[in-house]
C-alpha cells in the first residue's frame, strides 16, 4: 500500500516538474493562433493569420536559411576539431595538457557578452562581421567544447585492445581510428554534433554583435522583431521552431526504440541457437 502511495507521489511530482518546465514554452502556441493583434495571454478567438503573414514575409525565411547554414557548418567544423582535440587530450602525453584542456573549455566559461564584444572588435577590422564565415568561426569556437567533452567521455571507455588488435592486423593509426575507434565513439560524436548545432542555432548574444543589415540569424531577427512589433507572428515562428524540435526528438526516440527492438530479437535468436 505504501509502495503504491510512494509511486503515486513520485508520478505526481514528475508531472508537476514537467509542467513547470514546459508550460512557459507551450503557452507560445495558443498565442500564435490568437485573434488579438498583440501578443497576449489568454488568447482570444482562433486564426491562422499570423502563420499566413509569416509565409508571405521572405525575410523570415532568409534568416532561417542563414541560421541553418551557419549551424550546420559550425556543427560540422566543431565535430572535426572537437574530436581531434579529445583524441589529443585523452590519448596524448604532452606538457601543459591541463592548460590546453582549460583553454579549449574556456568558451563555456567566458560570458558570451565578452566573447561577442571581443569578436566584434576583431572582426570589424578584417571585415568578417555580417558574414556567414564570421558566424561560423565564432559558433565553431562555442561548439568545440561540447563535442570535446562528449567524445572524451566516449574515448575513455574505448577498449584499447581493440585498437591494438586492429594495428596488429595491419591497419595503420588513421585506418584504425576510422574503422575501430570512430564506430565505437559514434554515439558520442553525434551527441556532440547535436549540442554544437543547437548552440549555434539558438545563440543570440554573440550573434547580436555580428548581425546587421547584411546578415541576421533567426534568433536575432526574433529578438529585434519583438522590439519593433509585438504581433503574434513571432509566436508563430516560435511554435514552428518548437514543432521542428519536438519532431527531431520523437524521431531519435523512435530510432532508439527500433534499435532496442532489433537487439532484443537477435538475442532471442541466440537462445535458440544451441551450442
Amino acid at each position, binding site marked *: 500500500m505504501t509502495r503504491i502511495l510512494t509511486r503515486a507521489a513520485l508520478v505526481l511530482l514528475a508531472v508537476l516538474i514537467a509542467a513547470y518546465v514546459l508550460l512557459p514554452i507551450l503557452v507560445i502556441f495558443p498565442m500564435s493562433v490568437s485573434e488579438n493583434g498583440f501578443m497576449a495571454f489568454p488568447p482570444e478567438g482562433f486564426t491562422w493569420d499570423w502563420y499566413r503573414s509569416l509565409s508571405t514575409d521572405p525575410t523570415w525565411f532568409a534568416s532561417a536559411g542563414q541560421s541553418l547554414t551557419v549551424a550546420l557548418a559550425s556543427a560540422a567544423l566543431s565535430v572535426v576539431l572537437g574530436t581531434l582535440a579529445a583524441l589529443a587530450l585523452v590519448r596524448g602525453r604532452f606538457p601543459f595538457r591541463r592548460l590546453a584542456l582549460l583553454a579549449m573549455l574556456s568558451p563555456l566559461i567566458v560570458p558570451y557578452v565578452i566573447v561577442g564584444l571581443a569578436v566584434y572588435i576583431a572582426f570589424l577590422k578584417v571585415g568578417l562581421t555580417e558574414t556567414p564565415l564570421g558566424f561560423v568561426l565564432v559558433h565553431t569556437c562555442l561548439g568545440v567544447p561540447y563535442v570535446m567533452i562528449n567524445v572524451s567521455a566516449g574515448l575513455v571507455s574505448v*577498449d584499447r*585492445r*581493440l585498437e*591494438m*588488435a*586492429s*594495428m*596488429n*592486423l*595491419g*591497419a*595503420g*593509426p588513421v*585506418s*584504425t581510428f576510422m*574503422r*575501430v575507434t570512430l*564506430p*565505437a565513439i559514434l554515439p558520442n560524436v553525434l551527441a556532440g554534433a547535436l549540442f554544437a548545432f543547437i548552440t549555434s542555432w539558438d545563440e543570440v548574444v554573440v550573434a547580436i554583435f555580428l548581425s546587421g543589415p547584411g546578415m541576421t540569424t533567426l534568433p536575432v531577427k526574433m529578438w529585434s522583431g519583438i522590439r519593433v512589433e509585438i504581433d503574434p507572428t513571432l509566436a508563430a515562428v516560435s511554435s514552428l521552431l518548437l514543432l521542428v524540435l519536438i519532431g527531431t526528438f520523437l524521431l531519435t526516440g523512435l530510432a532508439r526504440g527500433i534499435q532496442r527492438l532489433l537487439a532484443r530479437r*537477435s*538475442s532471442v*535468436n*541466440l537462445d535458440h*541457437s544451441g*551450442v
Partner: protein
Amino acid sequence: MSQNTTDSRPDDQAGASINVEKVRKQYGATTVLDDVSLDIRAGEFITLLGASGSGKSTLLNIIAGFTKADGGRVHIGGRDLTKVPAHRRGLGMVFQHYALFPHMTVFDNVAYGLRRHGTAKSAISGLVAEALEMVELGHLAKRKPSELSGGQQQRVALARAIVFRPPVLLMDEPLGALDKLLREQLQLEIRRLHQDMGITFVFVTHDQEEALTMSDRIALLQSGNIVQIGSPSDLYERPNCRYAAEFIGVSNIFSGECRDGVFDDRINGAQYRLGSAASGQALMVRPERLAVRPGIALSEPEDNAVEAVVEDCVYLGSFRTVHARTSGGDLVVARTDVPRGEDGVHPGAKVTLTWKIEDGRVLA
C-alpha cells in the same frame, strides 16, 4: 603431462625465429624488464610464464610492437624489427578478453586482417571460411561477437589471428576468462593448431599447469628476469632455484646445508644423501616421489628418509595426498596410490617418508 612432440610438424619453415636481445623496460622507478634476452626457435611453442608483474605481458607487447623498449633489440625471422610499428610486423595476436570488433560480424572480424594486407577480394571469403572451419565455427560467420559465448569468441579471435598465415602467433592469457573445462578443451585445440600450422607460438600465462600442458619450452619470469628456460620436464624435474621449484607444481623443500655429499637437515635432525656433489641451502622433493610407510621403518640403503606425523589424508579418486608434519615443523605433502584397505596411514599416525637419492634436488 602431454608429450611435447616435434616430429608431427611440417618440414617447410612456416614459422619465424624470434631473438630478443637485452630488452629493457622501465616505468618510472620500476624495472619491468631487466635486460632480458631470449631466443625463440622457428616453429616452437614457447610459454612466457610468471606471476602478475613479472614482465611477461610487457615482453609480449614489445615483441608485438605495442610497447617501445627502453633498450635492446628484437629480431623476428632474422630481421631487426625493433623500430618497426606494430601494423607493419605482420604477426598474429590473440588478446586477453578476445578484443573482437563489436560492430562487425564474425566474418568481417576474420576478414579484417586480410583486407588490410591487401588480399584479393575474390580470395577473402574462401580464406575466412577455411579459418573458421579450423576453429569449427563456419556456421556462425554472420553473427555479431555479442551473440557468441566466451569460448566461441575466443575461437573467432584465433581464426582472425591465423587467417593471414602469420609467421608468429602471440597469445596474451587467451584462456584466462574461460571456465576450467572449456579452458582444457581449448588448450588441446591450440596445441593441435600449432602442430597443423607449424608457425611459432608465443603464449603468455600465469597458470603453470597450462604452461606444462601446452609448451615445447617454458621461460619462467620473475620481476623482469628470466629465471629459468627449458622444456616442461626441465622446469618440473630440474628447477634451478627455489622460486622455480615453488612456482611450478607442488614442492617439498627442506632447509639445510650440503657437506661432503650429504645434505644436513638440522631442523628435522636428519641427514640425506645426495646423488651428486652439489651446493645449496635447500633440498626439494616432489610429492609423487615420496613414499609413505607407517611407523618408523628403516629405509632401504638407496633411500633417504624423514619421520613425520600425519595431519590429513585427502582422497582424490585416482590418488591420495598425505599431509604430514616433521619433528622440525615442516609440512610435507606426499602423493600416493590409494591403498586397497587400511594401510596404517591416517591422521595422527607416525610415518616415515622416503625417497630415492636421485629424486632429491638441491636448490640454491
